[in-house]
């Protein structure tokens, strides 16, 4: 009997960790789209106005940091 209980517990643990991975995958969709769009637009801006490239790059990294924070929170939630 007890071995069935322990088997159920291990399977529940495995399911939980698997669900965490799926959750991280879901959390990465939004920031992925956002960062792609953001970098694409920044490249366009740099190509159109090369003299502003430095400022655009700085703002781009700041925007990436904001968008990426969501994916990072998802990454940590997997380990909790």
């Amino acid at each position: 009997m007890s071995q069935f209980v322990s088997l159920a517990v291990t399977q529940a643990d495995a399911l939980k960790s698997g669900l965490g991975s799926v959750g991280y995958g879901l959390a990465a969709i939004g920031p992925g789209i956002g960062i792609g769009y953001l970098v694409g637009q920044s490249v366009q801006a740099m190509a159109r106005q090369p003299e502003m490239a430095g400022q655009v790059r700085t703002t781009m990294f700041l925007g990436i940091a904001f968008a990426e924070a969501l994916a990072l929170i998802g990454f940590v939630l997997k380990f909790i």
Partner: protein
Amino acid sequence: MVLAELLPNVNELFEWKGVLFQHTLFELNKTGIMALVSTLICILLFFVGSRKKKMVPTGLQNVAELGYETIEGMVAVEVMGEETGRKWAPFLATLFFWIFFINIWSTVPFIQFPATSRIAIPIYLALQTWVIFIFVGFKHQGIGYIKNSLFPPGVPKALYLLVTPIEFVSKVFVRPFSLAVRLFANMTAGHVLLAIFAIMTSQLIVEHNSGAFQIPLGILPFFALIAMTAFELLVAVLQSYIFTILTAVYVNESIHPEH
């Protein structure tokens, strides 16, 4: 399933036994020794590089000057402006080169372990940045720093209901958290990726348990291993650059609130 049985627990990639000064307060394992060695390399590079200053730089002085000027130009002056940038450039250059020399161990042969993939070092760095930008904010704006950062000017009054909690959570929790976790997660993921491709290559080419036909299959993970090592080099530089530029942006926001 087969691969999962081959792999030991992933923690074995990251946990090291103490090597020096065992069972004392100063016990050092591989991670701690690597951090100390990186610090020494950093100090030596800039100490030797600036000892005999020549008008036309040669050798190590060239490397040190080029590295410092890159950070000064691309990060400090670019983000903070001419005057503040030159003042903060030494701190930012120190930050960049320390993180860089720790990250780059992930691709050095026979060591191949970035010490930043243990969370302690990123957390220390993020807390340092956090304390510095809040301290600088209070130093330059006095008690008005709270008002400027929680109630940004130029926002309609009704929106403060929404903006103030977001700004508070962002400044107090999300900034240090995302700084630490970004560095940690990137280096950890890279290290695990390299380890997996190395194990696959070794199993297919060196061991080939279930037959010699596995050897040609091993070429694929081997080239992936080489490509990923090159990618890790890029990640090591990029992550230290991003950490430095975000520190510069946060400190600059505390010094010049209107921008």
